[in-house]
């Protein structure tokens, strides 16, 4: 299992979390943590999740999540979590 970070940025509206979580549930991606904040009037959400590299390949999952975002008018970015751990933890 690999830890991934999914960030969602866009105008706040009904169903952002629901749609994103739906996709994750359908793909067996377990959510470990969710938090959200408003920056400059924009909705910012971050999820830490566990992804099984044996299931769907990273670029496929990344692309599908981007499309989910496009459908509801937000930007969804998926990254391996190591980059944040490395940068902010000694």
């Amino acid at each position, binding site marked *: 299992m690999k830890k991934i*970070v999914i960030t969602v940025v866009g105008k706040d509206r009904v169903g952002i979390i629901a749609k994103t979580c739906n996709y994750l549930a359908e793909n067996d991606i377990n959510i470990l943590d969710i938090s959200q904040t408003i920056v400059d009037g924009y909705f910012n959400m971050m999820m830490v999740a566990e992804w099984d590299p044996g299931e769907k390949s990273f670029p496929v999952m990344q692309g599908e999540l981007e499309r989910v975002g496009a459908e509801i008018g937000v930007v969804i970015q998926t990254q391996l979590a190591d980059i*944040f751990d*490395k940068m902010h933890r000694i």
Partner: protein
Amino acid sequence: MINIQEVLETNRMIHELNLDVRTITMGISLLDCNASDAAGLCDKIYDKITTRARDLVRTGEEIEREFGIPIVNKRISLTPIALAGAGVCRTEDDYVEIARAIDRAAHTVGVNFIGGYSALVSKGMTHADECLIRSIPMALSETERVCSSVNVGSTKTGINMDAVRLIGEILLETAERTKEQDSIGCAKFVVFCNAPDDNPFMAGAFHGVTEADTVINVGVSGPGVVKKAIEAARGKDFETLCETIKKTAFKITRVGQLVAQEASKRLHVPFGIIDLSLAPTPARGDSVGEILEEIGLEYAGAPGTTAALALLNDQVKKGGVMASSYVGGLSGAFIPVSEDQRMIRAVEAGALSLEKLEAMTCVCSVGLDMIAVPGNTKASTLSGVIADEMALGMINQKTTAVRLIPVIGKDVGDTVEFGGLLGYAPVMPVNPFSCDAFISRKGRIPAPIHSFKN
């Protein structure tokens, strides 16, 4: 657990402040490429490069996508070609054949630059070294992606002034051969003192003879991130300023370290070093000159610039060495003129001269970089400028370099457009007084007294 503020900070650095990994450079040794003639050697070299670096670009792109961090360049550095070709290359044309072969290899594997068309002649030149140096103008004008460098001095050996004299002429010839494109050939050629074996940055990258067969070196960057961070330290004391730079350099370097480890693991090639440099690009907000302004100067080049740069360079190193155990290459702030918008602006405003740039190179990596000078500058004057810069490196036990572009047909007041990452530059004046008699002396400048440490 990672928190949302940290995630937003990292992604803001990437999306708004131009944080990137500047280059993943694969060093490849050519010492095991043997053949009975130059054509055979070209085949061997081509085969080795295209085998070892087959997956370099694809792997770089995968890492880029998965971590969400741009990796701007994927490049290759080679054993200095003067050494690799010494056994079979009898003429300059033989060396040019190798240049064509490595250019083809660069196209095949998809890297944008391939370095190592180089010679190490800090104490003396072999026949092969001299052939390679004399072939540089043709090699650079007939290839697209090949980069060349010559190490003409070191603290241990002194400065090979015969090579310095020759390179003045070679620079002009390279400029002449590429005059249709604003003498761009010279932008792909660097002269060094104390050249490092593991530098991942072009145009001076080569794979030193002390290195393993294949190695991954990574160059990080992020002047925009440092600039943004020190905005918060406006008006504060030096301790606060230094702490801010150090912490930022640490964060930037950790990303480079992660990318280097991943690349090394996925390509099954040992990790060499991280080069923690602040390397500007012509893009807005990606400027070392802008950091100097933020520290408190009206323009780069104003009184105080050398001190501000010394401080910046030192803090970048202090933050960086904490982030990676293997730091090497050039490591420090780069001050190329044409690749940095604020440096260009400083030259245009009359704040920054060649002499001030020379002083600045005493305290930073690396040297006089991407500076356009009039095309009618004499070869001996170019050699004189090179000799001065080499002397700074030799005496101060640091790497120094010169990448001057004498632009044929252009003079002070004109602007030169190189395009892409190389940017544009105003042609700068060069001191008009002669050093002919000095440069025409034969031999070498002896090593300084402090080199005898045994």
